[in-house]
């Protein structure tokens, strides 16, 4: 037990540092969840409304995105739980990741762990145990807040057990993934790589869940993320998935403990290999950026290719909805059906275009953000004291980020096309995908230019980009489901071309976005040339 000495003290210190982060996340996660629940009764109260949305949710496209929906009679509460559980599971996992990395590797990197373990009577396993407890507290708070809040909304068709099961399922999946993150934190020695491992694992879990949901939901048990879909909220209220998730969390924690005991401080189980002692390739900021981005870049491209291909591989199922209805088939004739199938597929593509566009912005913005990270971590002082202008530096990151975002978007769309066309009889033409690509590009450029503007004049507020991006995505994604007012929908850049390729591109909107982007970029460059660099 000596190994755990002062765990509670560490936990207190961790919470003292993270309380604001936890509070903000909890307000956002639990708050929006309850708000959606409260609004649901109004939108999906009547049987007619339920039937309309049920049809959308039963389409393979939506199943691929948010998971399965039970057969038989649907209630408001059932629609709610099916629509929310996977999505909120994802968000909560992202929250847990950010917390787990900061409290494990992040803390060690900053030298805090060494100080605490080396100079104070704190047990060797106290920091990691405190990390696990902090995550447990955060998730328990989430479950309680959402549970109580959702209960008060009193959705038709809901029962208390189902509501609590839903709230606890999302908390449990977050905790389990957070605990797995603690394993990765023992394997590699820096927080950036821990995050890479985390998201690779989450990506794999999501893909397995998606593919199995669409093809054969029995196999969804293969993915821990899929377990939460199996709880049968409000119908059977199956608690097994919760038991499994908590067991998984415990096993992961024990593994992390075992790995932690067997490694040195500041080191990872996976050793850092030596490299070449000379370089001809590295010549300046541009080549340096390429070098630093190579593994992240390849992971993104590979990940987006897999994601695109997985969405593409269900193209045939998406057409089948129409095929399944013989009366309709007869009525429309073969060409009519093909037309129907195609328009179904095209709306699927435009929906996915928005998601790929969101991810492309994340990929590009992370590159541009790097410039500020390097400034804050004092890497930049070695470069900027060479004969390189600030304009050149910012331009390098801007161009690289934009091109990278475009490449990532292209890869996702066209691997979807390749995989999709291989499973359907009548290929979808290249031009449809190309149109989506062209319509999303201005949005990507706009978001990246917002970040350039922020880094130039107010780097403290650069995280605003993620709030804007998340907000825009939420508005376009939930906007129509939630019956939001039109003006609110129009705020999101994604709104303007969300019907492409079914409709043609709104060039006016695209041009406006580009004009605003150019202005923001100019402002950013002027600001960047005028401000003090941090150290």
């Amino acid at each position, binding site marked *: 037990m000596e190994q755990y000495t002062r765990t509670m003290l560490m936990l207190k210190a961790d919470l003292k540092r993270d309380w604001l982060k936890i509070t903000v996340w909890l307000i956002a996660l639990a708050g929006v969840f309850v708000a959606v629940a409260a609004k649901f009764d109004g939108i999906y109260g009547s049987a007619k409304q339920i039937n309309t949305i049920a049809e959308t949710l039963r389409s393979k496209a939506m199943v691929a995105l948010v998971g399965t929906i039970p057969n038989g009679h649907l209630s408001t509460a059932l629609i709610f739980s099916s629509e929310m559980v996977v999505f909120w599971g994802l968000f909560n996992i992202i929250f847990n990741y950010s917390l787990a990395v900061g409290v494990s590797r992040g803390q060690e990197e900053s030298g805090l762990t060494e100080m605490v373990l080396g100079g104070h009577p704190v047990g060797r396993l106290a920091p990691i145990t405190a990390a696990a407890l902090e995550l447990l507290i955060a998730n328990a708070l989430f479950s309680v807040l959402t549970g109580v809040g959702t209960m008060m909304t009193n959705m038709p068709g809901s029962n208390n057990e189902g509501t609590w099961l839903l709230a606890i399922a999302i908390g449990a999946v977050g905790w389990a993934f957070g605990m797995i993150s603690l394993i990765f934190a023992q394997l590699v020695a820096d927080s950036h790589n821990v995050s890479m491992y985390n998201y690779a694992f989450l990506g794999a879990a999501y893909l397995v869940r998606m593919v199995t949901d669409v093809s054969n939901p029995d196999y969804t048990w293969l993915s821990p993320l899929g377990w939460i879909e199996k709880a049968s909220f409000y119908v059977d209220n199956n608690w097994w998935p919760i038991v499994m998730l908590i067991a998984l969390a415990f096993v992961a924690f024990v593994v992390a403990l075992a790995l932690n005991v067997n490694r040195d401080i500041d080191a990872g189980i996976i050793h850092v290999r030596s490299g070449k002692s000379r370089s001809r390739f590295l*010549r300046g900021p541009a080549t340096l950026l390429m070098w630093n981005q190579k593994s992240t870049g390849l992971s993104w491209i590979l990940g987006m290719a897999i994601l695109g291909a997985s969405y593409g591989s269900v193209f045939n199922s998406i057409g089948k909805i129409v095929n399944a209805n013989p009366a309709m088939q007869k009525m429309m004739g073969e060409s009519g059906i093909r037309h129907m199938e195609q328009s179904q597929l095209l709306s699927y593509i435009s929906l996915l275009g928005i998601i790929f566009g969101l991810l492309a912005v994340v990929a590009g913005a992370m590159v541009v953000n790097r410039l500020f990270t390097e400034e804050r971590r004092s890497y930049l002082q*070695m470069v900027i004291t060479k004969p390189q202008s600030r304009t050149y530096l910012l331009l390098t990151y801007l161009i690289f980020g934009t091109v990278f975002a475009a490449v990532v978007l292209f890869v996702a769309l066209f691997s979807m096309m390749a995989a999709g066309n291989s499973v359907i009889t009548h290929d979808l033409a290249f031009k449809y995908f190309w149109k989506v690509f062209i319509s999303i590009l201005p949005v990507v450029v706009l978001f990246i230019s917002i970040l350039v503007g922020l880094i130039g004049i107010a780097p403290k507020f650069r995280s605003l980009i993620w709030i804007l991006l998340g907000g825009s995505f939420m508005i376009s994604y939930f906007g129509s489901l939630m019956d939001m007012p039109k003006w609110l929908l129009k705020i999101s850049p994604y709104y303007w071309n969300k019907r492409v390729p079914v409709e043609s591109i709104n060039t006016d909107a695209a041009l406006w976005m580009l004009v605003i982007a150019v202005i923001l970029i100019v402002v950013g460059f002027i600001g960047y040339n005028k401000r003090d660099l941090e150290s």
Partner: protein
Amino acid sequence: MNKMKEQTILDVQNLQKNFGKVHALKDVNLQLHTGEVLGFIGPNGAGKSTTIRVILGLIRKSAGSATVFGENAWKDSVKIHKNLAYVPGDVYLWPNLTGGQTIDMLLHMSGQKHSAKTDELIKEFKLDTSKKNRTYSKGNRQKVALIAAFSTDVDLYIFDEPTSGLDPLDELIFQQRVAELKKRGKSVLLSSHILSEVEKMCDTISIIREGKVIETGSLEAMQHLTRNVVAVKTVSPIDGLDKAQGVHQLNFTNDQHTSAEFTVDSDQVGTVMALLTKSSIVQLKTTPPTLEDLFLRYYHSDSNQKVGE
């Protein structure tokens, strides 16, 4: 540029820098001439790094002027940086590069090449250049930056507390390399909070305290700043010590006058030692004055006045 004599390489006049309400620099004046090594000393937090960051064009001055090679440090930074090498006090390097790759890249960015001299420096500093930067200690990261700087052929070298992570052997190599730069007519700005380090290498010394340069001069002119503190015990009473040249602040710690504490000018150490030996030394301790001692001793009256005002 080697042939230009006594040309001003670096000229800082009445420099001020405010961070919001904090006046980090109040009045900084520095001049560095061709072939000169300028020591820039002051306690931690006095404004050494801030001054250097203004000189490098990383941050903007609030008032005054800073010119390097006669060019504006902020506006013409790119031009200035072509002819300058800089080693920061805390060296942070991209974790995924090896030390060797970092050195080659830094050289390339200055328009230089990995030369025989680079290899010589790597060998001398005993740096394993195939290791990733993330595995290096603070001292090793500093070595990477020093190797790149010393094998860069430029006119001005700026070192900001460069030896804070080095062991004594590497410190010696550093001192030799600075001497070599000086021999080749290069100009060096060396900031430090260790007086003895600056003493060994610098022609001119500027002292900064609380954002103000309070004294500038040659080492000889500042001889009074480099007194050693001596504590001694002898068998017989030390006679004549109070009259000996270069002895200050004498204080006998016993009535027999066989135990004393005093300070002595560096150039008088020999004669004073001879005097002490006559009384048979039992115990002797000398310590070079710390900067804090100096400030306390020489600017005490100054702060008293402030209190009185």
